[in-house]
């Protein structure tokens, strides 16, 4: 059974600090997604990582993928309050199912002003 594990599940941090959210998955995959969800809102697509060593950056967020280690990271640089949200990683292209993606439990990020 595929498992997608995120840690930490909850993170409270000060503005201006750096931190990393980790996403481990248990089987071979060819796509890794990161989403942001604000309270009461839907999911916003942040990054899609398609290959080993892929790195993508948008503003203060940077995502990377190591398919050999089955690990993706979402790094936050100099956090600001506006980044407070829940961040989900999701894994796709698994078990010969092109369509299916499996979500982690999410990391609830709270950035203190």
């Amino acid at each position, binding site marked *: 059974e595929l498992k997608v594990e995120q840690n930490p599940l909850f993170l409270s941090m000060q503005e201006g600090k750096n931190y990393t959210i980790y996403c481990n998955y248990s089987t071979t995959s060819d*796509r890794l997604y990161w989403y942001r969800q604000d309270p009461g809102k839907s999911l916003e697509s942040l990054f899609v990582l398609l290959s080993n060593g892929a790195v993508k950056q948008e503003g203060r967020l940077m995502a990377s993928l190591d398919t050999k280690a089955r690990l993706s990271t979402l790094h936050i640089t100099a956090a600001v309050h506006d980044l407070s949200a829940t961040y*989900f990683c999701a894994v796709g292209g698994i078990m010969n199912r092109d*369509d299916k993606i499996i979500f982690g439990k999410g990391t609830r990020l709270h950035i203190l002003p």
Partner: protein
Amino acid sequence: SAVISQKPSRDICQRGTSLTIQCQVDSQVTMMFWYRQQPGQSLTLIATANQGSEATYESGFVIDKFPISRPNLTFSTLTVSNMSPEDSSIYLCSAGGGRIDNEQFFGPGTRLTVL
């Protein structure tokens, strides 16, 4: 990016009734999906909505309870049948993904409360 709309945005229903949720995408997409999200929880895939054929359901979800239609490449419906309070949740439609589209986008969700 695809823009996805859902109707209704929320509803309060009585036990034993059924509700149909509509999902409209602003462009043709290969894949459409239905998810369920309990408050404060992650997303669980209910099924893949296949155009012109029966939906592909995930373990724990059955067609009799969650019939799905997808008459064309931009529209799908999910019906929650014979509802019970345990069906109270947010239901999300998504589109795209897979090796063709790669990126998968989500609709705003339908918040369902069953009394």
